[in-house]
C-alpha cells in the first residue's frame, strides 16, 4: 500500500502487529511552542513526538523500537500528564496546547512540596505497596514523547520506512487474560504490606502536616491582609473561627456568589401596596382573570387541535 510520505508534517511509521495488519504511528520532531518559554520537560532538537501509539504500548516497547536510532533518555505518555482542557480544531495549536499546559500549567504542588521535604530534617520513609509490572491500557490514538540523549538520533528516527517493522512483543508485562489476573492480584496486596504502607504513609503525612503548620503565614485569628492593605473577609469555620486567619463575617451566600442580599429592602416596599383596594384594581383583576381563563382555554384548545391533527383521536 503506497502511502504519502508526509502527513501534516508527520512521518507515518508502519508497524506490523500481526501478519498482514499494519498499524501506523506518526512521528515528528517536537516543536516547542513559540510563546512559551523554553521547555525543560521536552528539550527541543532531541525530542520525538509520536501520535497514534497503540493503547497497550509500554515505555519498554517504545524504547525497544527506537533503540537503534540512539540512546533514549526517557519516554513519556501524554495521557499520564495532566490532560488538556479542550482540544481545539487546529492540530498545530492542539499540540502547542499540550505543551503549554505541561509547561506552565501548574506542576502539582506536591512536587514542590516533595522538594522542600528533601531539605527538611529526616523525613520518614514511605514504604510503597508492592507493584508488579502491569500494562497500562490508555485510550486509543494516544501520543507520546521520546527524548533522545543526543540530537543526532532524531533524524534517524524520522526516516520513513517502506516495510513495516514488527512491533516488539513485551513479555515483561502480561497482556490479555494474564493481564487481568495479575491486575486483580496486584490490587489486593497482602495485609501486612497494606499495614506497613499505611503506617509509613501516615507518619509521612503527619510530618508534612506539622511542617505546613509551621510554615503557614497565618495563625488562627489573625487577619489576612493583601498588598493593598485590604483585610480578607471570610466565612467562619465550624465553630465560628476561620481556620488560617481572616475576619469572620461573610455569609455563605456572599462567599459563594460574591454578592450580598439586596432584595430585602425592596421586598418590603412591594408588600405595602394594596391589591384589591381601589375599584379599578378590582375591575382590572376581574378582567385579567377572565382573560387568563380565556387564554388557558384557547391554549388547551390549540393543544387539542394539534393532537387532532396528528390523528390522535381515533381510538381504533
Amino acid at each position, binding site marked *: 500500500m503506497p*502511502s504519502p510520505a508526509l502527513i501534516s508534517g508527520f512521518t507515518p511509521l508502519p508497524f506490523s*502487529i500481526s501478519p498482514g495488519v499494519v498499524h501506523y504511528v506518526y512521528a515528528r520532531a517536537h516543536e516547542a511552542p513559540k510563546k512559551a518559554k523554553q521547555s525543560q520537560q521536552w528539550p527541543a532538537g532531541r525530542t520525538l513526538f509520536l501520535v497514534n501509539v497503540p493503547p497497550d504500548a509500554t515505555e519498554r516497547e517504545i524504547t525497544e523500537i527506537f533503540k537503534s536510532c540512539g540512546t533514549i533518555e526517557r519516554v513519556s505518555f501524554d495521557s499520564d500528564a495532566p490532560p488538556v482542557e479542550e482540544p481545539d480544531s487546529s492540530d498545530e495549536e492542539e499540540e502547542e496546547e499540550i505543551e503549554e499546559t505541561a509547561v506552565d500549567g501548574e506542576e502539582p504542588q506536591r512536587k514542590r512540596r516533595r522538594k522542600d521535604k528533601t531539605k527538611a530534617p529526616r523525613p520518614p520513609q514511605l514504604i510503597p505497596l508492592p507493584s508488579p509490572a502491569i500494562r497500562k491500557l490508555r485510550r*486509543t490514538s494516544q*501520543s507520546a514523547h521520546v527524548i533522545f540523549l543526543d540530537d543526532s538520533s532524531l533524524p534517524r528516527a524520522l526516516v520513513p520506512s517502506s516495510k513495516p517493522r514488527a512491533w516488539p512483543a513485551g513479555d515483561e508485562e502480561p*497482556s490479555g487474560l494474564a493481564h487481568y489476573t495479575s491486575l486483580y492480584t496486584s490490587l489486593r496486596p497482602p*495485609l501486612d504490606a497494606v499495614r506497613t504502607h*499505611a503506617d509509613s*504513609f501516615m507518619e509521612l503525612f503527619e510530618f508534612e502536616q506539622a511542617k505546613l503548620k509551621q510554615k503557614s503565614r497565618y495563625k488562627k485569628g489573625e487577619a489576612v491582609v493583601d498588598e493593598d492593605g485590604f483585610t480578607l473577609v471570610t466565612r467562619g469555620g465550624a465553630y465560628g473561627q476561620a481556620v488560617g486567619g481572616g475576619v469572620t463575617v461573610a455569609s455563605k451566600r456572599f462567599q459563594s456568589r460574591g454578592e450580598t442580599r439586596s432584595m430585602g429592602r425592596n421586598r418590603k416596599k412591594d408588600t405595602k401596596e394594596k391589591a384589591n383596594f381601589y375599584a379599578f384594581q378590582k375591575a382590572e383583576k376581574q378582567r385579567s382573570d*377572565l382573560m387568563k381563563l380565556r387564554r388557558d382555554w384557547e391554549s388547551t384548545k390549540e393543544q387539542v387541535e394539534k393532537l387532532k391533527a396528528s390523528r390522535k383521536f381515533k*381510538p381504533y
Partner: protein
Amino acid sequence: MAAATLKRKREVEQSVSKERDQTPEISDTGSQGEDDEKPEDEEWNGVNASEPLDVDEELPRGGKHAKVPTGVEVREMKEAAGLFRSSSFKLQIDAILPNVRPKDKHRLPLETFLLSLHTLLMNIPSTSPAQPLDATRPLLKKGVSVPYATPLPTEDSNWKVAFEAPSNIILAGSWNTKTSVKPPLGGQYGIDVAVVMPDSLFQEKDYLNGRFFHKRAFYLATLSAALSSKIDDLKVDLAYHSQMDNPRLTKLVLTPRPGSFKLNVEISIIPVLSTTSPLLLQRLAPSECSVRSAGDDARKPTPMYNTALLTALSPPSHLLSVHKWQQEAAAFTDALTLLRVWANQRGFCEGSRMQVRGFEGKGPWWSTLLGLLVTGEETVGKPKRKPLGRGLSSYQFFKAALDFLATFDFGKERIFLKTGTGHNYPPSEYAETHDAVFVDASSRINLLADVPLGSLDFLKCEAKKTLSVLESASSSFDPFAETFLHDKHALCTRFDAIVRVDLSTAALHDIDKHSIIDHASPHNALLASISRRLRQGLGDRTKAVTLLHPTSSRRPLSQALPSNSHIFYIGLVYDTETAFRQVDHGPDAKDPESAAKEAFQELWGDKAELRMFKDGKIQQSVVWDVKTADEKSHIPIQIVKYLLDIHFGITDGRSWHSSFDTLIRMPEPISKMYAETKQLVGFKGATTAFDNLVKAIKALPEDELPLSILNFVPCSSALRYTSAMAPVPRLAALPANASYVQTIPLIVQFEKSAKWPDDLKAIRVVKMAFFERIASSLMNAIPGLTAAIAIRGEDDNDPTMEVLTPEGWAFAIHIWHDRELTLLNRIIVGDEAQHIKRPGEKKPTKGAEYHDAVAEKEVYLRRFIHGPRHHRAVTKLHHAFPAFSGTTRLVKRWFAAHWLLDGHVSEEAIELLCAHVFAYPQWESDHDANPEAFAASASQVGSKERGFAMVIEFLQSWKWDEGLLVALYDAGSAADGESTEGVGSGQGVWALKTEMDPTGRVWTNKGPDSIVARRIQALARATWGHLGTVETESESILPIFTHPNGDYHFLVELNPSVLPRYHQNVHADLALLSQRHKKFSNLQNTPADEVEVRIGFDPARLFFKDLQRIYANTFRIFWDPLGGDTFGAVWDPTLREPRSFKVLGGFSSAPCPVEAQKGKGKDSKSKDLVVLNEAAVLSEIRRLGQGLVKDVVPQKK
C-alpha cells in the same frame, strides 16, 4: 413584521402624551377597524403601562382573542373545568366523539336502502302452515336451512309452522336512537331491523318445548329465502349469525357489498314478538320449566331458555326506554358513547380478537346500565343507590357508571330497574337460577343471564383500574389517552396468568342433558360449567377468572347451527395475598352437614382428603405440593389445569408462564450441585449471610476496632431481591466456567471522630488501615473466613475490604466518611478563602485534579447517598408488591440478553423503570395504612410475567425524551439539592426522576445515550409483538431473549471455558459446563480447591470495560454481562470516511492510499487524509484479550 411592530410601538409611545384623554372605549370597539386606528388600539394598552407583561402576552394572539370573553363563553369555560375533569379533558372528549359515530351525511343513502328493504319484506308472500320438518324441504332447495335449535322438532310434532307478512317493521337498537358507536378494528356499525311476526302465527302454548323458537326459525328462514333471491338487486350478502353462538338467538345479517355505502355497516333482521301475542308470558318466570319431556317430572327450571324467549320481546320496549332516558338526561348519548369506547378498548365487545366472554351483542345492557343511573332501581324500601341528577355532564355519567361497575358485587346483589309497575316475576326466583341479575326496564329480561360472573369480575377490575387512573393526580401519563385512546386488548398485561385450552378433546360427562337443553348447545353449556367450576375452585385466590375467545362468526344460510371455535383462553387475575397459599380448607370433618362435604369432594375429586391441623381441627382439605418457590407462584395455574382435567377431561391446558422461570434460574447441572450441598442459597441465603457477617463484626472486641461501628448499610441488588440471577455462595466443586463469586457491596459507617485527616489521600490510607485491623481480627475470630483489601476500585480510588465467609458468601465493604464530600467540593469549587467569586471574574482553569474530583464526587454521591436510599426504597417496594422482584429480574435478564445491562443501562435504572409500572404516588402510605386493602387493590400485579409484559409495553411506547417521574419515594420527601448537582452531565438521555432525584440522571448519567435508547425501543417493540403472538399461538418465549447480532460490524467471540460466569448465559451450552477444568489439565494439575479464589473476578467484564474506555470514540460495544460469550460492536460511521489528519484524532488511523484520494478531487488538503485502520484495531483487540478472545469476526453487510 417585527420592524413594523417596533415602529408602531414607538408611535404609541409618542402618541401617549398627546392622546391621553382619549377614552378607552374607542380601543375596545376599534379592534375591527382599519389599520389607521391600530395605534389607538394599542395606545390604550400604553396607558396601562403598569402591567406591561400582560400586554406583551396578549398582543401576539391578535385582536380577536384579546377581547374579554362573553358571558356564554365564560359559562362554557367554567363548565368545562367544573363538570369535566379539566377543560382539556372536555375538549378531548369533544374531539373523540365525532370520530366514533357515523356521520350524518352517510345516513341518508342508508335510509333509502332501508326503505326499499321495508317494502320488500312487507311483500313477501305467505306460506301455508306445514309440519316443521316438511316445511324445511322447499327452503333447502333454495339453499336455505332452517336454524331449528334443540330440542329439535320431530316427525310427529303436531303443530305447524307458517309464514305471513310481518305485522310491523321497526328500526331498533342504537341506529335509531343515534347511540351507535364505532366498533373496534374491522367492525361494522350495526343496524337492527326488528320484524314483528304477526300474532296469528302463535298459540298460547308455544312457549313450551322450543315451539316458539322453531316457528321463529322458520320465519327467519323464509325471510332469508325471500331475500336471497333479491341479493343482487340489494347488493348485499346474507348470512346467519347467532349471538354468543346461541342458536335460539339467530338473526339474519345483510352485509352490503363493498362500495355500495361509504359507511361500513351491516343490517340485522331480527324477528320479534309483538306485545299482543297470545304466548303465556307469565309462565316464563326464571324458575319455570319450559322444556318438558314425557318421562321427566322433575321440571328443572330453564332460565336461559326463558330469557332467550323473552329477548324476542325486547327491541321495541328497549327503544322506548332509551328514548326516555335520552329525554331525561341530556348527556346520556355522549356518556353511553364514552362508556362503550372504554369497553371496546378493553375487549368487552364483539370483534376479531380475543374478547371477554358474554359481552357479545350487549348493547342494550350498556345503555340500560346508564339508564339505571338515571332512573334508579326497583326496590322495596329505601333504595341503596339514588338516581343521579339529570344535569350531569357526560364525563360525570361515565364516571358514575364506572363507579357502579367497580363497587357493585354481581355475585351477591341484584339489580331490578325501576319500572313503575312493579316486578313482572318474583325477584327471589332470579337468585336461584341466574348468576348475575340485571333486569331491564320492562322487568322481563335479565340482560346478564348469559354473562359468566368471571367476566363481570374482570369488568370490575378494569373499572377500578380506570377509576384510579382518572383520580390520580400523577402527571406521568395522560389519563384521557389511558382511558379512551390506548388499545388495552393485550392479554399479557391484563392477566397474571393465561391458560390456553382446546375444547375439542373435552369430555362432557360433567354436563347434564338438561343444562345442554337450557343453553341450547353443548358448547355453551360446557363453557358455562367451566366458568362456574373454576370460579368456585379458585375462590378468593383470584379477583377474576375470565374466559376469552374470538367472537362468534357469521355462517352461510345453508348452515343451520353455529360452529364453535375450540380454542379459548382462561385469564386469571390474582389476589396476591391469597393466590399462592398451598392448602385449601374445606368443611370440618365433624360438620353434620354432609352437603358441604360432598360438594367439596365433588369439586376436588381425589385431591380432597381429611387432614388434621395444628390447632386440632380435622378438616377436608386440598394440599398443593410444590418443590420450589417458582412452582409456588404457579399454584393457580396448577389448580386450573387440575380442575379442567378431572371435570372436563381437558389435559392440554397450556400456559407459557412457567417457561419464564428457567430464564432466571441456573442451569440444571449447576443447580443440582447446589441442591446437594443443602446450603441456604438465593436471596434468603444472602440475607442470612449478611446478618451473620454484621453480627460477627459487631462482636469483635472493642479494642480491636479503631472506632466503633455505627451501622451497616446493605446496598446491593442481591440483598434487595432484584438481581437477575439469585445470589449463590461459592462452591469449590463448580467447573471453572461457573466459578464466578458475586460480591455483595455493603457500606459501613463508623462513629464520628475528629481524628480523621483532612486530606483525601490520607483518608483513603486510613480506610485501608481500618480494613487491615478488621480483616485480621475477623480472620482470627472466624476460622475459614478470608478477607482481602482491594486498594482501589474499578472506577474510583476508594479502597474496599473483600470478605469471603466460610459458607462461601462474598461481600465487599466500603467505608462511608462524610468528610470526603466536603473535601471533594473544596477541590471543585476551589479554596474558599482564595476564591470569593466576584461577578465578572474569569473562571480559573480547571486541571486534572478538578476533573478527577468531579468524577469521584459523582461516584461518592451514587455510592453513599443515593445507593442506600435507593436500596431501602426498592426493598420496601419488594415487600409491598410481591411480583415486583420477579418482574425486575426478568426485565434485567431481558436487558442483559440484549447486551445492554451494565455497559449501557445500570441495574438501578431498570429497577426504577419497573418501579414505575408498580408504584403510584402514596403507595407507601397506602401500604402502611392497610396492607390487606393494599394487596387487594386493582393496581396490584400478581405475576412477574404480567409485570414483564407491562414493562415491555411501557418501553415500546415511552417517549424517553419527555422523562419519567417514578413515585418510588413518598411525595414531600425532598432531596437536598447538593446531592444531585453535578450529575446529568453525562451522555445519558433517560431522565428517571424521583422525589430524591429531580434531575433524573443519577442512575442514567452514563447511558443509555440516544442511539442506545432508540435501539432499546426497537427491541421492546419486537418483543412486544412477539408477546402478542405467544398468547395466541403458544410459541416459545425464548426468541424474546435471543439477541439478533446481525447489525454489528464485528463480533468478538470469547472462549466460554475461561468465562467464570458462563453458566448464567441464556443459551449456555450444558456440555461445556460439565467438563471440569479440562482446559487446564495440561497446564497445572492443581486440585480445584487449591486454585486461587478470586472473588468477583470477571475478566470478560474488565476486558469489556477496557475496550469501552479505550475505544470510546471509535466504536460502540455491547455485551451480555450475565455470562455473555460475544461482544458486538458498531464502528462510528463518521470515522469510516477519509478525513484530514489530526493529532488528537482519537482513533487509530492509517494514511489514505494515494489512488483512493484521486477520486476525491482536488480538496484543500487531500493528501493528508487518513481513514480508520479497522484491521489494526481488530488485531489490537485480539492482542488485548489474549487467552480470552477466541476470534474477532468482522461482519459484512
